[in-house]
Each structure stands twice: as C-alpha cells, then as structure tokens.
C-alpha cells in the first residue's frame, strides 16, 4: 500500500453559533502538491487552515495528517505541521536567532540538529543577515519571512501558509514564491491568497471556497485547459461601428470599449486571421490584437458572484 496522503480532510464542519463558516469540506493533499486556496473575504479559508493546523476545533469531521488523526493524537500529528497564520506569530522582543531557536525547541528538534535546522531555515528565507536583530525592529516583510522560517524549521510534511505574501515588496514576493515552489518539491503546501496570479504562478492545484463550501477544485493544468481563449481584444485607429465588426466571420458578439477598443467574443474557431484581413481591406488601421483567456479570475468571479446572485434571488422569494 502506498503511504497515506499528507492531509486528508473529510466532511469538515465548523459553526460559529448559528452561522456555518465551513461546511462539508473534504479534500486531500499529496506529497509534492502546492494547493492554492482561494475565496472572497470571510469565505472560510482561514477557519479551514486553523482547523488543519490545530488552532481551531472542528464542529464535525476528521483531519488526518500523514494518516495520524489530528484530534486523537494531536502531538504526533502536529510534528508534521508548519503553520504561518495571517499575522506572523513572532515575539517582538526577541532576536531572530533567539526566536528561531525557541521554535526549534518547541518543535522538539534534537539538540545536536538544532543549529543546523536554524541555519537552514534562515538561509531559505533570506534571513542570514538579520539573525541578531530584534524582530520588533524588522520591517513587515522580514517579519513575514521570520514567520515562514518558523513554519519550515522542523521540515514538516505539511506547510500551511495563510496569505504569505501580504505586505511584501515585489522582489520579496518573487523570492517567497520561488521558496514556495522549492518547498513544494518535498513538502505538501497549502497556500491561501487573494492574489489570483500568485496561484497560477506557484500552485499545481486550486480550490475555491465560497460561503464555507468548496465550489471549485482542479489542477492548474486543468484550469489552463478550461481557460481556452474566448475573446479577442483589438484596438483600431479608425474604429468601425459594432455592426461591421459583427460581420467578421466567427465573431458572435461585439463589445465596444472606450479608447477605440473592441472586445470580440467567439465560441468556435479563433477569428483573428479573418479580422486582420478584414481590417486591412477595410482600412480600420488595426494596431493591437490580443486573445483573452478565460482566466482563473473569471472563474473565481463567476463562481463567487453567481452564487450570491442566486442567494439574493432566494432571499427575495
């Protein structure tokens, strides 16, 4: 039998008094997976992550980490978890080295391996130069890195990161993304974020949670498949009226945009070639042409707004 999945969440529920924050959530995470966890504010992302990391008790359901039940054997299961909450859990009055050494001890790293573990974590998170500085005096970005270092210091099987790139500058974001991809090779990672391109850049699986329920789960490769081009964006210096554009073969619908732009929707074949030919012959002076993909963002907005529209209709009825 193959080894059990790193995380196995089944039928997870969490109620806050009456409202259901997490509702019937089930998923698995295998070694080498980087799972992007998406959802609008208050969708239940953080609650789910808190439950997997043992910070919040589920109302119902089971969580297994490497086959160990988190609720039955919390100590053994937690050895395999590294968790970075939204706010990095750092003690401002300690130096980076002191803090990491405390974390190493908390996570029961043996004395002789401790120094090496601290050095590796510091190296991986780019903290080599700030080891002796007080955490309280570091910038937000560096505090975030200290938080990540804390989560990976004991090389856990599962790393859970709640919005790890918030408050970082673009260079740091790139470094952190690189780090996440690197970690993803030998750990399983769950990553929550609001930044959709981040998911496409770092994750190989995507889940969207909305009102406590999983509404979408797929691999990013599958997402690319879904994301076939469905519209063209064109800019003309002498833009024709909508009716003329509609007559280009293959175009279903035209949307005229400000700045002499037009969006042309199509369902079957890509009409780019026909459009270029027509533009040249009719003298529309086409200067820009690009295909728009059905992106994660569109899927996200579709799933999260369609449902609320549905709910509003329900409420009105």
């Amino acid at each position, binding site marked *: 039998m193959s080894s059990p999945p790193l995380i196995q969440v089944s039928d997870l529920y969490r109620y806050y008094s009456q409202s259901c924050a997490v509702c019937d959530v089930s998923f698995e995470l295998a070694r080498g997976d980087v799972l992007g966890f998406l959802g609008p504010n208050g969708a239940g992302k953080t609650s789910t992550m808190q439950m997997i*990391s*043992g*910070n*919040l008790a589920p109302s119902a359901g089971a969580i297994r980490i490497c086959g160990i039940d988190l609720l039955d054997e*919390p100590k053994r299961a937690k050895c395999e978890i590294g968790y970075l909450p939204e706010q990095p859990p750092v003690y*401002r009055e*300690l130096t980076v080295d002191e803090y990491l050494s405390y974390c190493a001890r908390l996570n029961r790293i043996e004395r002789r391996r401790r120094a090496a573990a601290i050095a590796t974590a510091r190296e991986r998170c780019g903290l080599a130069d700030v080891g002796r500085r007080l955490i309280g005096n570091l910038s937000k970005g560096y505090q975030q890195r200290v938080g990540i270092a804390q989560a990976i210091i004991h090389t856990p099987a599962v790393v859970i990161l709640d919005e790890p790139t918030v408050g970082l500058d673009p260079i740091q974001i790139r470094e952190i993304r690189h780090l996440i991809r690197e970690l993803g090779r030998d750990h399983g990672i769950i990553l929550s974020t609001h930044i959709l391109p981040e998911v496409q850049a770092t994750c190989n699986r995507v889940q969207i949670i909305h009102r406590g329920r999983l509404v979408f789960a797929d691999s990013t490769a599958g997402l690319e498949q879904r994301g076939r081009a469905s519209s063209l964006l064109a800019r003309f210096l002498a833009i024709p009226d909508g009716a003329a554009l509609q007559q280009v073969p293959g175009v279903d619908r035209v949307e005229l945009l400000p700045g002499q732009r037009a969006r042309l929707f199509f369902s079957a074949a890509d009409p780019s070639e026909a459009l270029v030919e027509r533009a040249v012959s009719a003298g529309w002076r086409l200067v820009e042409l690009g295909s728009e993909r059905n992106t994660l963002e569109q899927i996200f907005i579709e799933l999260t707004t369609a449902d609320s529209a549905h709910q509003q209709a329900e409420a009105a009825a």
Partner: protein
Amino acid sequence: MILTIAARELRSLFLSPLAWAILAVTQCILAFQFLSYIENFLDLQPQLAARDGAPGIADLIIAPLYGDAATVLMLITPLITMRALSEERRSRTLSLLFSAPVSMTEIVLGKYLGILGFFVCTALMLTFMPLSLLDGSALDLGKLAACLLGLLLVMAACSAIGVYLSSLTQQPAVAAVTTYGALLMLLILRRTSSLSSGDSGVLGYLSLLEHYENMLKGMVNSTDILYYLLLVLLCLVFTVRQLDRMRLQA
C-alpha cells in the same frame, strides 16, 4: 518542553523594563522596612535581654518583614501576570504554541513556571536581607525557611489566580483589574470573618493570608501547604480548560 516555554516567558519578562522596575521598587520598600524593624529591635533589646524566652530576631524582624513582603508582592502580582496569556492572544502568538506539538497542559505549566521564576527571584532577593544578619546574631534559620516557604506559596497561589484571569481576556488591563479584585477579596475575607466572630470560620479558612501567618510563626502545617497547592491546582486546571475552550470558540 515545559521548561522551554518557562524560559522564554522569564526571558521576555526580564527583557521588559517592567520587571526590573518592579524588582527595584519592591527591594527599596522592603529594605526600608527591614531597617526600621532592626531599629525597633535594637530599641527593645535591653528589655528583651532581661526576660527569659523573649521573642528573638526571627519574631521581631523576619516575621513582620515577610508579612509586609506578602502584601507588597500581592500588589505587584497582577502587573506581572496580566500579560501572561492575554498578550499572547492579542499579538496572535498563541497559534505558535497551538500548532507546535505541545499539549495545553504543557503550555499552561510553562507559562506559570516562567512567572513563578520571577517571584522566586524576588523572594530570594528579599531573603538576602535577613541572611545578612547571620554575621553577628543568632538567626533562627528554621523560622526563616518557614517564612520563605510561606511567601513562595502565597506567590504561587497569587500568580496562579493571575494566570487564570489573564486567560479570560485579551486586554492585559482587564486581567490586571480582575486579579486585583480577586486578591483583595481573598484579603478582605479574613477581616470580615474575624469581625463577626472571635475565631475565623469558613471564610477565614479561605483567606489567603490566614494560612501564611502560621508559617510566619514558624509553624509549617500540611493543611496550610495543601490550601495553597489546591488553589494553584484549581486555577491551572481552569486555565487549561479555558485554553481548550478558546480553540472551540475562537
């Protein structure tokens, strides 16, 4: 694991100026009291020397000094314990402990022992004063040990109450106020009970200092020790349960 958490707690306490200020101020006040008790003793000494079985240094200097120390330390306990758990909740550092392979009991015991470490420091600093009398007087070390033990037990009970109340709120100030309230209540209990009837009844038994006074006289009763240990145990069990509930309610 418990010791790791305790060491971190103690270290953080001493990294803030608050702990140092408290140590300095208590030491000053108690040193002043110590000197005035010595002066008092020296005034009385000619009369005492004449009598047989007269009270000695232990009764006239050490016992009142440790009595004062308990009152002063009860006043500073809330300042030290108020941040124990409320601060961790407020700055969200508690999740570091929750997601580490550590049980709730270990977290609470670690926090508690860290704070107790501070009070052991204060008590030892205080004990240097009577120990300085060893040179040039016949000090009853047994009585001194009883006083020290009593003081440590009072501190242990006070800080356990403080740690529990600090787990109930995210605001250190609220934790401090409620701890003051609880400790003063335990002080007042004795007053009211001794007013109503000559001997202290149930209320007197509950009073925090009633049991301490026996030890100041040099009597170490197991009932007194048990009273403090039970109080500590009760508060710590409540704290563990409170942390568990925090995970349920969050």
